[in-house]
């Protein structure tokens, strides 16, 4: 194939799209659906990972004191905690302050729990220097007299890690299966286009067209369908991302703090999805036309 044919072949690829517009449209619609699910699965997985690392970075633990401990005795625990090497800061958090915070957040239902009826316990909010020393530090804190328990955020982190693993696993399968589906759809479209143009292909062959010359317009057609689908689906994801993120943050406030913003994801989403669309187009188109030409005379 010659360089002088390139312009003609690209033009033919665009013409093919228009000639088979209904088939092209149907392919774009199905591909957009697949890419939307794939993109959503990837973004969910990415956000769960971010959430986990946010929790990991937050190295504050809460030390709960025994219920029967008086305020004065409770105040004495603080300096002992402070003495531990891995503790960088230690702030007293009284049960009165805690009930007030609950009241502010949840309304006056805690009115009857003021003063001596307060069911909460005094506590310390403790900042750690090194999170990897977490277990040793917790052991040391628990040995201090008057300490009842230590809040453990690692539980949430562990759960989220499991969730992330699950989301990644499911996401990977979704991406793989939908990848195959999209490949199948695009190669089927090209196969049908070729079938409808088999007469033309036979004429091309009879006048001495090489396989490369016959193949290129079809691959370009598939590439354009893939690119178009990638652009539309990434556009939809970018447009819908913030409303979905806000709704999720309304249910789980932590998501609001840790989830990626649309500004952080739009460019990568656009590039990735368009790239995947084009790649699937090229591979799908190439496979089907090569199969067809291999079978022909």
């Amino acid at each position, binding site marked *: *194939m*010659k360089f*002088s*044919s390139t312009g*003609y072949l690209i033009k033919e690829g665009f013409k093919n799209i228009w*000639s088979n517009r209904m088939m092209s449209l149907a392919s774009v619609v199905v591909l957009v659906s697949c890419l939307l699910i794939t993109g959503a699965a990837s973004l969910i997985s990415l956000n769960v990972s971010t959430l986990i690392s946010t929790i990991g970075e937050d190295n504050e633990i809460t030390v709960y004191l025994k219920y029967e401990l008086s305020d004065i005795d409770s105040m004495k625990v603080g300096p002992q905690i402070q003495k531990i090497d891995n503790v960088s800061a230690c702030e007293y958090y009284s049960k009165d302050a805690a009930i007030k915070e609950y009241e502010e957040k949840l309304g006056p239902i805690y009115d009857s729990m003021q003063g001596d009826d307060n069911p909460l316990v005094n506590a310390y909010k403790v900042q750690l220097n090194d999170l990897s020393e977490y277990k040793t530090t917790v052991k040391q804190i628990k040995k201090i007299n008057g300490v009842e328990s230590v809040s453990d955020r690692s539980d949430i982190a562990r759960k989220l890690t499991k969730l992330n693993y699950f989301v990644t696993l499911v996401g990977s399968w979704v991406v793989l299966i939908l990848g195959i589906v999209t490949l199948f759809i695009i190669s089927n479209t090209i196969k049908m286009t070729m079938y409808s143009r088999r*007469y*033309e292909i*036979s*004429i*091309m*062959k*009879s*006048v*001495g*067209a*090489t*396989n490369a*010359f016959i193949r290129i317009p079809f691959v370009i057609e598939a590439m354009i369908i893939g690119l178009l689908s990638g652009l539309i689906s990434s556009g939809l994801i970018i447009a819908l991302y913030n409303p979905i993120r806000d709704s999720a943050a309304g249910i789980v406030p932590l998501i609001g703090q840790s989830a990626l913003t649309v500004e952080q994801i739009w460019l990568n989403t656009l590039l990735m999805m368009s790239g995947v669309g084009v790649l699937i187009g090229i591979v799908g188109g190439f496979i089907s036309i090569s199969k067809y030409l291999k079978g022909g*005379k």
Partner: protein
Amino acid sequence: MIHLENVSKIYPNGTEALKNISIDIENGEFVFIVGSSGAGKSTFLKLLMREEKATFGKIKVNGHDLMKIKKRRIPYLRRTMGIVFQDFRLISKMNIYDNVAFAMRVVGTPEKAIKKRVRYVLELVGLKGKEKRKPNEISGGEQQRVALARALVNQPEIIIADEPTGNIDPERSYEIMKMLVEINKRGTTVIVVTHEHDLVEEFGGRVLHINDGEITEDKFVKTKYHEAPISLNDSELEFDFGDDQTAAENDTNKEEAEEE
């Protein structure tokens, strides 16, 4: 130019379409291939175009050994021949100009050269001024002339016409045949497959009868168009295609050289 030696073709279903055929067709010959349907005429053409591969024997066409030719080289073999089909095989969505230009685009000729050459060939077949029309807007005879123009446009060494007059009325058939004779007079080998004996009697030349997969007769029919069998000197005549044609041919040769 065309050399067949002990060629047989047996299809996978067991049909023996050609049986031990040996034949030579020289440059510049005008050959009719006649025979009833199912005699093996189409298989003979398919072997020449390498649409099918012979089961046994040796075939050489325009320097290509068709028993050894690689699949990727087949397009280059086909560029040395122009094919005219009974059903014209024009692309309906393309206008006449593009239908002819298409054959040159396939071989990568620059657009400027295509423009010049296509106009010249369309004028040659009497279709000047009809470039913009679609195939369904012209008559059957004109459609066959477009097919002829397409076959001629790359200046092939051989023109193979498979029942070129099968779908057109007798008057137009004579026109097409006269054009083929004219093309032949200018040096191009012409092979016409037909079952119309009137045309054979009228135009003459070398006549090969194929019957039940065998060549049963190989004779020369003398007419006003073909007075004597071709001699080697006659076959060296060249069809004047103009300067741009030479450029197109050179391009094709160059591409083949690049490929190699």
